[in-house]
């Protein structure tokens, strides 16, 4: 069975990812892979309204059968849709009924991972602590508070989704760079290279890909101290100081709160990046086409991936690029972008939403405006924000040898 074409469909899920990859064959039924299914920054009811029609569309397009699911990493905007509750009519339940043969996830989600493995497994739990910390700090500027909350909420434990994914599929694969994904067995004639995540090697982790060591992370956050701080001062027996004599201290007191908030934001970003860098990154080759699915891999993950033998060369032949990390500046680092063949009709697919992450004034907005301009100038950019403006649900690109790419908006 040789593929004759591929179709990649990108759904508008707001701030999140949902891609349906379809491999077409001449004499056989097409095969389907769902890559991520989640959204964020919505109330639960709104998520349901948004994802349900998409789940039903996927069910219709796949004629009731998914061959594989790839859950790139555990963030809610990538896997939150798999939750099968509150009822059998939930979007997650619809997807579950498509009975995928294979579920691919990063190695960090392997339930058999040793407890002392250098993985960011506890980052989600830390998000809860961060939310508590932010709660305590009434002085945090509202914009910064919003940024911290949005980031932390994305990292909240997704237990229901994680449990659901662990039970889906006849086969579970937890992959890392260089391993076989298992997708070849359900997608005949397709070659899949797992580029990421690059697993840190115990002795060389810091020079390769760094996660916050668990102890450091907990100490950095001062968890027990923070928990106790809810109730009492650090030196409960020592008198506090009040009154007009404290006036010379006021200038600094206000500013310490600003700096404290900056520190908390930096920590939240670090936890978030830890999880992003566990993203499964796949280079899929079918019908003479190369497709690059990047999840939310950030710059340091790309540094580690590109340091691996042969990876940089493979990227030279990519036809379709799933824009990394919703268009953030660090999701498409220069070192990656310059390796993609922009001059020969590269297609970029960007799933994003304005105003969820970062601040324009600080140059941290997602999607990063300067990157979007570059994508639009140097590639054929498909953007879910255009779908929203036209009240459309998805856009699909069909690629086949000898034919120009065909774009379908629905």
């Amino acid at each position, binding site marked *: 069975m040789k593929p004759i074409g591929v179709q990649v469909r990108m759904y508008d899920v707001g701030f999140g990812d949902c891609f349906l990859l379809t491999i077409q064959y001449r004499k056989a039924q097409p095969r389907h892979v769902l890559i991520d299914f989640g959204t964020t920054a919505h109330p639960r009811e709104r998520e349901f309204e948004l994802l349900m029609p998409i789940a039903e569309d996927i069910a219709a397009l796949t004629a009731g059968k998914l061959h594989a699911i790839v859950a790139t990493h555990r963030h809610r905007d990538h896997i939150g849709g798999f939750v099968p509750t509150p009822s059998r009519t939930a979007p997650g339940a619809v997807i579950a009924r498509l009975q995928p043969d294979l579920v691919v996830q990063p190695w960090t989600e392997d339930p058999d991972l040793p407890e002392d493995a250098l993985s960011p497994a506890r980052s989600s739990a830390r998000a809860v602590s961060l939310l508590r910390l932010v709660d*305590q*700090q009434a*002085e945090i500027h509202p914009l910064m508070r919003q940024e911290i909350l949005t980031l932390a909420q994305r990292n909240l434990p997704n237990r229901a989704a994680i449990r659901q994914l662990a039970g889906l599929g006849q086969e579970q694969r937890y992959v890392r760079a260089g391993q076989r994904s298992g997708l070849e067995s359900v997608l005949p004639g397709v070659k899949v290279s797992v580029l990421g995540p690059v697993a840190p090697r115990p002795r060389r982790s*810091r*020079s390769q890909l*760094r996660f*916050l*060591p668990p*102890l*450091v*992370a*907990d*100490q*950095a*956050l*001062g*968890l*027990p*101290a*923070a928990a106790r*701080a809810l109730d*009492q*001062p*650090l*030196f409960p027996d*020592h*008198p*506090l*100081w*009040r009154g007009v*004599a*404290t006036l*010379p*201290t006021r200038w*600094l*007191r206000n*500013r*310490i*709160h*600003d*700096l*404290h908030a900056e*520190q*908390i934001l*930096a*920590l939240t*970003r*670090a936890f978030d*990046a830890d999880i992003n860098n566990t993203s499964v990154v796949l280079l899929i080759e079918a019908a003479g086409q190369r497709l690059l699915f990047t999840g939310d891999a950030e710059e*340091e993950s790309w540094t580690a991936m590109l340091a691996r033998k042969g990876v940089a060369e493979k990227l030279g032949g990519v036809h379709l690029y799933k824009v990394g990390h919703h268009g953030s*500046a660090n999701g498409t*680092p*220069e070192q990656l972008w*310059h390796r993609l063949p922009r001059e020969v009709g590269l297609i970029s697919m960007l799933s994003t939403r304005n105003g969820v992450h970062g601040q324009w004034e*600080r*140059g*941290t907005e997602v999607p*990063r405006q*300067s990157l979007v301009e570059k994508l639009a100038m140097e590639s054929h950019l498909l953007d879910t924000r255009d779908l929203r403006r036209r009240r459309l649900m998805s856009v699909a690109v069909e690629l086949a040898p000898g034919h120009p790419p065909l774009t379908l908006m629905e």
Partner: protein
Amino acid sequence: MVRERELTIIAQDPGVRVHGRILTARVRIPHEELAAGPRGSRVHVVDYDSSTHSLYRPMGPLNGESLTANSATGDPFRTATSAELLSNPHFHAQNVYAIVMRTLQRFEAALGRRVSWSFGGHQIKVAPHAFALANALYSRDHEALLFGYFPAARGRAVVHTCLSHDIVAHETAHALLDGLRERYTDPSSPDQAAFHEGFADLVALLSVFSLPEAMAAALPRRAPAAGWNLRENAALGLARQFGRELSGLRSQALRRSVALKPSRRLLHQPQFQAPHRRGEILVAAMMHAFLAVWQRRVDSARARTRTQVAGEGACVASHLLTMAIRALDYAPPTDIEFGDYLSALLTGDFESYPRDNYYRFRSVLRGSFARFGIQPTSVGTAEEPGIWQRAGGELDYRRTHLESLQRDPNEVFNFIWDNRGPLRLCEEAFTRVQSVRPCARLGPDGFVLRETVSEYVQVLEAEAGELAQLSAAVEKPAEMPDTLPVKLLGGGALVFDEGGRLKYHIHNSLLNGPRQSRRLRHLWQNGYFDPSYRRGHFELSCPWRKP
């Protein structure tokens, strides 16, 4: 009149104990009339905890209370137990006050003049319990040093970063260096970013080593039968002592630098491009020199006992600390690279000790830096390789007034303007004299040596496409858009002798094409032209800031 005050501090950190007691030291700092805080003329301790919204009642005179011998004038913690040192926030305030003041005093003594903070104010604010986070930082914008606290790895204890001597000295060194060389925080080369970290580590380590108590604690109690081999007997002991409580959280400069095997290739390896790691190379070069001179002194003085050996080590550390600080006056004010700093070290020491007969510090430093691939920027002379060349050329002093030259930036600018040709200044650039500082140091002949140190900076803003037309022939990276605004920096340190004649002109010229091209390429490749790039604070360890 009382000129000095002795205060108890924790010699290293609370994890270093002798007979179960926290190792303390008594340090001498300048006496001053303190207000509640303590709040002196240069340091104001504000014990506010933003995590619990608690402002602790400070030590010192409050609401009309008078100073007593047992409060701010004396040393209330001279006989305190370890438990009291840990649990009394007044001691924490005293500890940070004394270490910041001691570090400031070391800078002022080495440079022979008052040293200013970078932010223009006179009193740096210090918060010993700023927040429940495992970090400590200096922030120029906040005019402050902030120290966090966090739970210990084991047990229910709390670790206070304000009780670690090296952490307090490290952050203070950042603040002082920022006051002396404000352009060292500009985006430049990998060396410049690393220099701030490496220098702060150096000051922190040498500050601790200059306390004989801390040195003795790291040495074996009995003299080794085979004699003292300090690399084996002391270096590892010292390294172990550092970071005992803060495992994984600080840069671990000493532990890593002692273990760092000298190699000329280190500077080019990818893992040593990040500022904290690259700074370790500078620290390693200095620490290897420190051990070599210490060993030489121990051998030649036939030091036997632990106390003698520790005393020799403290002397060497103290001398190296003075050298390290004094070198700043001989370092270019912009775009410093490690080779520049080595030339500055050698020149500063040469000015104080023209003959390198004091345990041959300069010879040892040259060798140690060379083993780590760092060569002095200046060729030097046949007798003194590596020192900066004396200012030469035909300089015009006709419109320069000596008295005014020693304190007035306008007078120095007049001199620079009149001599912009021989000084090789870029005429298209904006030029500003940053400071003029008269200083007095003890010369080699025992007489007071009066010099005037001044720095100027040149800034040129242009579009990338215009750079090729400059006489400096600066090359922009090929992918850089022609219309991108870029800023070129140059500048020099001018050292005038007692007669107002220019002795040294130590500069990184804005017209140095290869250097400017290298800097632009580095900045472009590392995303510094992206608007999202922001200059941060100087943090203890940046455990959550990825390299």
